C-alpha cells in the first residue's frame, strides 16, 4: 500500500515541499507532515466559521480529531483518503461542539453549511475552488497571527501552534523555553485578539504591505530558528525550516502574497534548506560551506529556489531578502567554494550593510572579502569589528578570526581564537565543530 497523502490535498506539485518517505517507504511522515498540515488547514477553516474569539474551541476540535486518527488508524489501517477521513471526523467533532457549546449557536448556519458540503469533488473547477478556499483560510490565519497587537514572540508561537500544528510542548522545545511560558504566551495572545476584536481577514490594501512585512519577518525567524539549531540535533527544529518553507509557499501562491519580496524570501529559504543534508557529517558534526559535499545539495529545492528568485526580480524595490537570496543563489550555482562568485557576494554584503548596518552582516562581509582579496584583507576587516560591543559574546567572530589566521599559517593565533570561540558558544554541534578545528591545529603543529 503506497499512500498518496499530500496528493489528496489538491496542491500543485511545485507548491509542496518534498514529502519525505520513511525508511520502508510505506507509511508517509504522518505526524510531521500530514497531521501538521491538516491541523493548520482545519484550525484555519474552523476559526473562520467559529470566529477568532473561539480559536480555542477550533483547536480543541482539531486536536480531538487527530487523537481519534492516532487511535483508530493503527488498528484499522490507514484510510485510502486520509485527508477526507480527517475532514469527516472533524465534522463529527464540530457537530458535537455545536450541541455542547451555546456560544456557537449564532454561527450555526455557516457551520452547518460547511458540514453539509460534500467531500467528494467531481469537477476540477470545484476542486480548485475548494483548494483556494482552504488557502484563503490559512492566509487569514497567517495574517491574524501576525497582528501588530501581538509581540513578535507571540506572533511566532501562535503561527506554530495554529498553522503548523505544533503542540505547546513542541513550540517550547523549538524555542528552548518552558512549556508554561509558551502556554501563557499563547493564552495572552488569544485574549488580545479577542479583546481587540481582531477580524479574521487578510488586511485591506493600505494595511497589507506592512502586515505582509511582519508575516515575512516571522517566517524568516521561524526558518532561522530551525536552521541555526543545526539539523539532526533536534528533529522538531529541523521541522521549523520545513514549516517556514511551507507557509512561504502558501503565501506566494496567493494573490495577496504574490509579491517580489515574498518570492525573494522563499527563494532564500529554499536555497538554504537545500544544504540541510550536507551540513552534517556521518558523526553529526557540523560542516562549513567549504567542507560540504555539494552533490548532497537538494537539486530540486535549488531549482525551485531559482524559479522563485526569477519571480522576485519583477518589482523595482530591493528588499534584504532579495540580497540574501542572491548570495544564497551564488553559492547554489557555484561548482566549489573557491569557484564561487565572491565578487558578487561582496557587493551583496555591501548592499546589505547600507540597508542594515549590523555587525553580523559585517562579519559575513569580511569572510567574502577574504575570499576575494585574501585572508590578510579579511583579517584587517575583522580586527576593526573586535571593538564592537555587540559582538562581544558572538562566537563566530573569534571563530572566523581563527579560520583566517589558520589560513595565513598563524597557528598560535588560530588556536587562541578557537579557544576564545569555545568560551562563548552555546550549541552542542558548534562546540564540537570548534573543538574539532582546535584539535586539528594542535595535531598539525
Amino acid at each position, binding site marked *: 500500500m503506497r499512500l498518496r497523502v499530500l496528493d489528496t490535498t489538491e496542491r500543485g506539485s511545485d507548491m509542496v515541499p518534498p514529502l519525505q518517505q520513511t525508511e520502508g517507504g510505506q507509511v508517509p511522515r504522518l*505526524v510531521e507532515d500530514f497531521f501538521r498540515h491538516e491541523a493548520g488547514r482545519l484550525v484555519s477553516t474552523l476559526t473562520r466559521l467559529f470566529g477568532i474569539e473561539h480559536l480555542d474551541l477550533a483547536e480543541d476540535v482539531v486536536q480531538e480529531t487527530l487523537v481519534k486518527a492516532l487511535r483508530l488508524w493503527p*488498528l484499522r489501517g490507514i484510510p485510502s483518503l486520509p485527508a477526507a477521513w480527517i475532514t469527516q471526523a472533524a465534522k463529527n467533532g464540530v457537530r458535537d461542539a455545536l450541541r455542547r457549546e451555546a456560544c456557537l449557536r449564532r454561527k450555526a448556519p455557516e457551520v452547518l453549511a460547511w458540514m453539509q458540503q460534500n467531500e467528494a469533488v467531481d469537477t476540477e473547477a470545484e476542486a480548485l475552488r475548494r483548494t483556494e478556499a482552504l488557502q484563503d483560510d490559512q492566509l487569514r490565519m497567517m495574517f491574524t497571527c501576525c497582528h501588530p497587537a501581538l509581540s513578535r514572540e507571540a506572533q511566532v508561537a501562535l503561527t506554530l501552534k495554529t498553522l503548523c500544528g505544533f503542540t505547546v510542548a513542541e513550540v517550547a522545545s523549538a524555542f528552548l523555553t518552558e512549556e508554561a511560558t509558551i502556554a501563557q504566551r499563547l493564552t495572552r495572545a488569544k485574549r488580545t485578539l479577542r479583546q481587540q476584536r481582531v477580524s479574521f481577514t487578510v488586511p485591506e490594501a493600505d494595511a497589507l504591505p506592512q502586515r505582509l512585512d511582519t508575516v515575512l519577518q516571522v517566517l524568516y525567524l521561524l526558518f532561522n530558528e530551525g536552521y541555526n539549531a543545526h539539523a539532526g540535533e533536534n528533529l522538531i527544529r529541523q521541522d521549523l525550516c520545513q514549516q517556514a518553507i511551507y507557509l512561504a509557499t502558501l503565501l506566494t501562491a496567493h494573490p495577496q502574497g504574490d509579491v517580489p519580496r515574498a518570492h525573494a524570501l522563499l527563494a532564500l529559504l529554499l536555497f538554504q534548506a537545500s544544504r540541510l543534508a550536507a551540513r552534517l557529517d556521518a558523526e553529526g558534526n557540523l560542516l562549513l560551506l567549504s567542507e560540504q559535499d555539494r552533490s548532497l545539495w537538494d537539486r530540486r529545492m535549488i531549482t525551485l529556489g531559482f524559479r522563485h528568485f526569477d519571480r522576485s526580480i519583477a518589482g523595482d524595490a530591493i528588499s534584504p531578502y532579495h540580497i540574501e537570496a542572491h548570495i544564497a543563489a551564488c553559492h547554489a550555482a557555484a561548482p566549489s567554494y573557491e569557484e564561487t562568485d565572491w565578487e558578487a557576494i561582496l557587493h551583496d554584503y555591501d548592499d546589505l550593510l547600507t540597508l542594515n548596518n549590523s555587525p553580523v552582516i559585517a562579519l559575513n562581509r569580511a569572510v567574502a572579502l577574504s575570499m576575494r582579496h585574501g585572508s590578510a584583507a579579511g583579517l584587517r576587516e575583522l580586527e576593526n569589528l573586535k571593538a564592537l560591543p555587540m559582538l562581544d559574546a558572538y562566537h563566530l567572530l573569534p571563530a572566523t578570526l581563527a579560520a583566517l589566521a589558520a589560513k595565513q599559517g598563524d597557528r598560535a593565533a588560530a588556536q587562541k581564537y578557537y579557544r576564545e570561540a569555545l568560551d562563548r558558544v552555546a550549541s552542542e554541534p558548534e562546540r564540537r565543530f570548534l573543538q574539532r578545528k582546535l584539535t586539528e591545529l594542535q595535531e598539525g603543529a
Partner: protein
Amino acid sequence: MSQFLLLLRGGEYPESPEAIQQIIEKYVAWGQKLRSEGKYISADPLHDSGKVLRSAGTGMQITDGPFTETKEAVNGYYLLNVADADEALETAKGCPALLYGGSVELREIMQM
C-alpha cells in the same frame, strides 16, 4: 480454521512526533501482514470509559468504568482467523502492543 480474539490492555506510548510515527508504522505493518496472510477479520480501539451493568438482588447496578485501573482495562481488540491455537499464539507474539509494555490476552472464539 479457528477464530481468536486478542484483547489489548495497557501500554505506554511516547508522544513525540517521531515516536508516534514509529508506533503507527509498527501497527500498520503488522496489520498489513495479518491481511496478506488472510488472518485479519477486524480490529478496533475502545474508548477509555464505559459502564458496567450487574444484577444486584432484584434490580440492576450500573457503575461507570473504567472498572479497574486504566492499565488493566481493555483498550482495543483484534479478531483473527488462524489455523489453530499454536498459530494464534505465534501470531499474537507479533502484536506491537507488546513492544510498548501492553499485554495481549488471547481467547479462542467458541465454535459449534
